[in-house]
């Protein structure tokens, strides 16, 4: 790295710190301008290169899983902090790492990238591996329609040099697949079809039969059975079990003959939920679970995963660009699994309450003010545990407010 770049990036870092904005992209922006090949050069030197994790739902948790599995296998893994998946955010993170330890000694970088950012990234750095979890309608206010999203991901698959890992059960698979690539798969056994797509009348993709490397065969509670062995997850929900199959498949491709199924399944059982994705925060000794919901498919899976009737529920819906401006998807989700909802909050609290009314679900309080609603919610003494379904910007705020009353891991 040139000295001039280093100095400029350092100043940018200090500036962001001084402003207290917490934005980590500025140093990266400076680096991009002064030394455009910095990121590609640094990452290209890694012995195992770069693995990109993308898809509509489950990116953060799956990235965390892959990182932990590879670390257990003995690799030194670099990853990007949640939320900074712009190319320049990654450049910032790489720079900060070099500043911290004086060098960039890693075996592999595992990066979470959203669909649009992934395209920008692969234009600069060709990943060696690519795990695509799923392609579902989401952020349509940003991408227009789901075929656009699939188009982005196809570009990423095309640029990947060594191994592409795809979801064998994804109905948009054919739109992502690039003909000349060797592709690996993960998926679920046909006995689980009802669980994953209860009303899927779409003709399943007209592929030739696929033999996935890792198959999810059975789920009972948190116990899951794969074709390569069984384990118990700390992550809840069928969607996390399937994404774990994806993480295992990617790790298998990366490690090749070094892949030790027993060891990896044990490591998988230690993976805890990621920041705000089913993360449990203890408040006054009672667990409060934050569940990020942002589209109908993800919300449906999260609702299906909850099975404790003693749990008090809050739902917070915002509609900023980071949440998705369009909240119509609330109407495509069946909420009847919830018997009642104690608090409804967020900018679109009344839309949410109206939605629940149509499912005949009793609502305790409706308050667009997140902080007030949260303190009312957690001061309810009759419940022993709490769960909050929230959109992205609501999650960040709620987590901050929870931090005022409880010990919470610092937001990145």
């Amino acid at each position, binding site marked *: 790295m040139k000295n001039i770049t280093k100095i400029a990036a350092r100043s940018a870092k200090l500036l962001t710190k001084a402003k207290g904005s917490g934005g980590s992209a500025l140093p990266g922006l400076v680096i991009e301008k002064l030394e455009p090949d910095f990121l590609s050069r640094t990452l290209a030197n890694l012995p195992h290169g770069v693995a990109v994790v993308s898809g509509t739902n489950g990116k953060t948790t799956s990235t965390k899983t892959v990182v932990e599995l590879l670390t257990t296998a003995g690799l030194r893994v670099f990853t990007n902090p949640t939320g900074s998946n712009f190319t320049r955010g990654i450049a910032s993170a790489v720079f900060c790492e070099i500043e911290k330890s004086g060098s960039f000694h890693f075996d592999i970088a595992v990066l979470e990238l959203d669909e649009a950012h992934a395209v920008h990234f692969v234009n600069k750095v060709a990943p060696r591996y690519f795990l695509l979890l799923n392609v579902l*309608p989401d952020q*349509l*206010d940003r991408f*227009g*329609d*789901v*075929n656009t999203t699939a188009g982005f991901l196809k570009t990423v698959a095309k640029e990947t040099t060594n191994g592409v890992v795809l979801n064998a059960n994804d109905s948009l698979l054919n739109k992502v697949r690039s003909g000349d690539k060797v592709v690996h798969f993960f998926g679920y056994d046909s006995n689980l079809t009802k669980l994953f797509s209860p*009303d*899927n*009348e*779409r003709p399943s993709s007209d592929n030739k039969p696929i033999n996935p490397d890792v198959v999810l065969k059975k789920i009972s509670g948190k116990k899951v059975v794969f074709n390569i062995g069984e384990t118990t997850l700390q992550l809840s929900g069928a969607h996390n079990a399937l994404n774990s199959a994806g993480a295992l498949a990617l790790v298998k491709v990366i490690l090749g003959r070094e892949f030790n199924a027993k060891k990896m399944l044990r490591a998988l059982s230690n993976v805890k939920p990621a920041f705000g994705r089913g993360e449990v925060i203890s408040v006054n000794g009672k667990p409060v679970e934050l569940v990020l919901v942002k589209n109908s498919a993800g919300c449906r899976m999260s609702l299906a995963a909850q099975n404790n009737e003693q749990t008090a529920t809050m739902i917070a819906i915002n*509609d900023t660009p980071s949440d998705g*401006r*369009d*909240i*119509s*998807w*609330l*109407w*495509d989700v069946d909420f009847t699994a919830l018997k009642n909802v104690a608090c409804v909050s967020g*900018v*679109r*609290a*009344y*839309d949410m*309450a*109206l*939605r629940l*009314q*149509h*499912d005949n679900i009793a609502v305790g309080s*409706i308050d*667009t003010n997140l902080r007030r609603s949260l303190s009312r919610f957690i001061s309810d003494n009759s419940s022993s545990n709490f769960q909050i379904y929230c959109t992205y910007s609501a999650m960040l705020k709620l987590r901050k407010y929870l931090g005022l009353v409880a010990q919470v891991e610092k937001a990145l």
Partner: protein
Amino acid sequence: MTKQVKTLDKKQPSRNKSLTVMVLYPARMSAYGDQGNLLALKHRAKLHGYDTKVVLHKPGAKFDEKVDIILGGGGQESDRSAVLDDLSKIGPKLKKLADSGTPMLVICGMYQLFGNYFLTQSGDKLTGVGIFDTYTEDNPKRLIGNIITKSDKLGLLIGYENHSGLTYFNQGQAALARVKKGAGNNGRDRTEGARTSNVFGSYLHGSILPMNPRLTDELIRLAAVKKYGEFSPNDRIDDSLTEKARRAAQKRSR
């Protein structure tokens, strides 16, 4: 309290008054909250004293003409082509029902296919049902965002639009509403949606019916009058929650 329960009781489904709602191509043409329209219709019909029976029409299935209300939603381009064959078969039947006054609500993709044709970006002309004297041209730039329109009969219609097709009218075609905020049919002439006899077409999801109960009530009224010769609305429905949701939506930027 007891009084209120009694009033409600009077409006509970009784004397077998029932409306049959058909959903066109539920698997293919259902996007962005189209489910909400069916939910709202059922919910509201019940409050007015009608049971609802739902019929799902799938491509290739026999078309059941004994319906009181028809709903259709949005879809991707591949979905559109998948229903086209069936739509050309049932088109004349839909037209006959429309002529006889059957209320229908079609959103986005199905709204476009209820017009004369849909011109894809690659130049393919997909023939529509022709209930609306409109045509739609697909456009590389999508019209996306919160939208508010005003209809003389139904007041403010509030929702969210997301479409790449630009819909234009031939002379004499009536719009559903005028755009107050947002793009509407084509982003140019300030029209939104279309209305021909009792058939309503619109780009609004959000979903349109739960957020706009006057439109829901209108569909139910038209269906009830056609089937039973009369409609006596339940004028004691508490719409305070809907009003608050509408006010919150109106304050959101485009």
